[in-house]
């Protein structure tokens, strides 16, 4: 579903961020990428999203080569096939919860009634059906991240990219959000890349990769469990 080949990226010649990254992700797989600060986790995520262009190498998503796309084509691909969850929620304050969730459907020109039904169903799935008409400032951090998850998945993306989704949450809310995220992606068969510092969050993934200067190093199946224990 997602293949990165010989991917390199640097912001200055003296400071390469990513060097010769190779990585393949199957459809429906859920992988967590961990690593120390400054190793390029977020850059990797941005490259996968087509928000940044690599210096060399290729990124293929569902058969589409991202590096060969212009900005509009990459945006179109993001709109149809990707979902995002951010650390800082980024729920639009002037829209209601339901309107926020429905945004990707609107952008994909989904018919109004169908969009409403999908939104309500997604809100129910994340446990916020009764908050559909609330404003974001009326929600807790955990609830806002649920809204963000609902928004990321409402249009049935093929790939979900989550950047530190529990970074702003307390441990209890973080666990609950990660559990919800896993449930939802597994239910919908969405492929997911999670970038996180949190071992608890990473533990919800199918496999964990450690990003280092040497590239992405797979961690053993027991790693998350070890960390969990």
């Amino acid at each position, binding site marked *: 579903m997602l293949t990165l080949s010989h991917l390199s990226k640097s912001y200055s010649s003296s400071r390469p961020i990513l060097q010769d990254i190779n990585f393949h992700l199957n459809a429906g797989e859920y992988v967590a990428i961990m690593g120390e600060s400054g190793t390029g986790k977020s850059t990797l995520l941005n490259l996968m999203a087509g928000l940044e262009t690599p210096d060399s190498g290729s990124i293929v998503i569902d058969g589409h080569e991202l590096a060969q796309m212009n*900005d509009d084509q990459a*945006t179109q691909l*993001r709109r149809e096939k990707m979902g995002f969850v951010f650390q800082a929620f*980024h*729920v639009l*304050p002037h829209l209601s919860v339901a309107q926020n969730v429905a*945004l990707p459907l609107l*952008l994909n020109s989904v018919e109004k009634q169908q969009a409403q039904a999908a939104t309500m169903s997604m809100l129910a799935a994340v446990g916020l059906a009764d908050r559909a008409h609330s404003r974001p400032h009326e929600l807790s951090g955990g609830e806002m991240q649920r809204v963000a998850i609902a928004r990321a998945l409402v249009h049935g993306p093929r790939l979900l990219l989550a950047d530190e989704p529990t970074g702003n949450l307390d441990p209890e809310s973080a666990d609950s959000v990660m559990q919800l995220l896993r449930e939802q992606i597994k239910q919908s068969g969405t492929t997911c890349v999670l970038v996180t510092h949190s071992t608890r969050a990473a533990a919800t993934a199918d496999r964990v990769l450690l990003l280092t200067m040497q590239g992405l190093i797979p961690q053993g199946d027991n790693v998350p469990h070890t960390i969990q224990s």
Partner: protein
Amino acid sequence: MQTTALAFTFLLGEFRAHGKRVAIGVIAIAIGVAMGYAVHLINYAASSEFSQAVRSLMGNADLTVRGTRIGFNEQAYPLLARLPEVAVASPVVEIDAHIPQQSEALKIIGIDYFRAQTVQPNMLGHLADENMNEGLDAFHPNALFLSPAALTWLKLKLGDTLAVQVGLEIRQLHIAGTVPAAGAGQRIGVMDIAAAQWRFDRLGLVQRIDLKLRPGVDIAAFQSKIDSILPTGVAAVTPADGERRAANLSRAYRVNLNVLALVALFTGAFLVFSTQVLSVVRRRSQLALLRVLGLTRASLIRWILAEGTLIGVLGSISGLLLGYAVAAAVLDYSGADLGGGYFSGVRPTVHFDIWATVIFFALGLGAALLGSLVPALETARAQPSRALKAGDEENALRRLRSPLPALVLIASAGALCFVGPVNELPIPGYIAIALLLIGSIALMPRLAYAVFSHFPTPTHSASYLAVTQLKGASGRASIGLSGILASFSLMAAMAIMVTSFRVSVDEWLGNMLPAELYMRAAPSGDTAYFSAQDQLIILSTPGIARAEFLRSTHISLDPLRPAITLIARPIDPANPAARLPFIGAVLPSQPLSSTQPITVWASEAAADLHGLVVGKQFMLPLGAHSQSVIVGGIWRDYARQHGALVINLADYRRLTGDERVTEAGMWLQAGTIPAQAVNNLRASLHNNTRLDIAEPGEVRRLSLKIFDRSFTVTYLLEAVAIIVGLFGIAASFGGQALARAREFGMLRHIGVTRRQIGLMLAIEGALLTTLGVLAGLLLGWVIALILIHVVNPQSFHWTMNTHMPWVLLSSVAATLIFAAAITAWLSGRSAMSVQAIRAVRDDW
């Protein structure tokens, strides 16, 4: 101390990060201060020069006995001179001489050299050496002394001759010397009084007698004493009264121009307000964090006010420097007349005025501080815990939605419209406009909420995002909306007022110009006229079917006010409305009888300034006599701001014996073309090519051209205010786009293209501007009504009908909506230059 250092760092950081925003605020304040300061300096220089000229003419006199422009009998002179309280009495003849080829008249003062040495030493001429050799002295009937400014203006040198028009004749005067003590820009000529009376056909008449009283004489008591012995229309005034009277000539015009110049400062203050509001909204969480960390409310207010202070200080200083330079350049290149015609011919230099400098500095600083005060207070009032949270920005602006303060301001504005002028200036009217403007701006958040919350939500993605933004963040939207409202309403108000005035003047001219051909003895001065003989010639000129003659002169109904114009023209007593555009009731014609007062018709200004109402009787000074008259009606007059009275020409001639006229309106015989009649007239009147002859169409065109020229500065100041307003709109959109960079980042992540964000912003800009323009049009119309029905009648004493310049308003509205959409789109582009990735990584 540490807090101060932190504040400084905070301030510096904000200015560094958003230098353009700060610069726009500084420029707006600078432009506002510069316009106001420049207009003040120009008017100040002109009126100072004018006052100095008045002082210089009155010299050392303790009192001046002044009559009508025609003058009064010189026999008053020995009567006054013999009074025991009078040390010296100096008679003066004042003539506004028409110089052929010049559009302006030359003021010629006829003095008694022996008396003037004591009373008006500045008026004494200095005889050139070569004249002495030729035996020409100051008493020679053709000897004229010119001030240096007059010599320069007329491009003459000592020994040259100057042609002046008297009646239809040309008389030559000899430049015998200079008037070295005349003011720097004062264009005057001085002659011996007897020579002036003789050469200008004013024998037996003087315009004023300046009195130097003996030491110890109570001036006020003496003034009352001689008032009873002076003929009607002649009064004694002090030099201070004279200066006040001179200043009154242009006061309303100067005050109006100053107020107009301050409009740019008002829009500048509003620009600072909108940029500061958006700036503190953008930094709301940062400021809340500082509060959490222990910064007091008072310190936070001081910090934000310090930003405003810096903008105000920089803007004011730049504005003062710019204003001074503009004033100096204008005075140097085009003189002191800003279009009103009050100071044409006056060429003063700019003078530093410390009080005005302090006042305009304070106004600039005050405007910037006022613009920062509301956001500072709101930020300090906000709960830090809530302000730290995402999405609280709209809460910050929610408080603005309360309509109560706005409604109180608007109601107060309404009440002030019914208050009369203060010190003869429409101060309550101006305050009403300011309150109405501030009240309407304060009402905008409510209006934005009311309108946009009921707006149907479209399904197209960019439109959907735009409309939901306006619905959900109406408070933030209203900041931009208010900027549009302020600039468009002021523009619309001025456009409606000027159009109403122009159309009314045009209609009035149509009414006032019934004849087929008009002729003036000269375009300026009071020395040219048509004699009785000339009138007969005109009537018998081939092609002229009939003619109506008009005599125009000045009389004084109140020595402390500028003289009013007395127009003697044929009026049909049974139908005076055939010649005068009356407003209100007109008295039926009075039977001709020696016991009944004769009818005069007062212009609106004369009625307003001198308390004349239909049916009122008063004594009209006419030459050496005064006559009981009754006001038969009030007519509209846009030509004479200080008032005019119309009297039937036959009555005037009967009462004064004055057969001279200054203008003629003529009807042509069937088949005569105007050009042919013009040639015939010139031929009949001694081949006179100087005669000012025009068809009504030409007079109308010329009058409207003068009208437009007199409003040039108004248009210029208004354009500056609009440009500052547009700056405000751009700054407001720019500030909003900057504050929404994270929103754009998120939208880019979820698949919204740059084009769609641009389109969304353009739609927001267009919708917002459309609402702003519609509200601005309504507000502008109300302000125009105040200008037309309150400010104008109180300032200039004339009324007009309201006319809407729909074409102009709709073109400006369309341009503004288009410009706003483009500006919003450009602001978005600038905000999107912040990478989407970086934007979403920022904390809310």
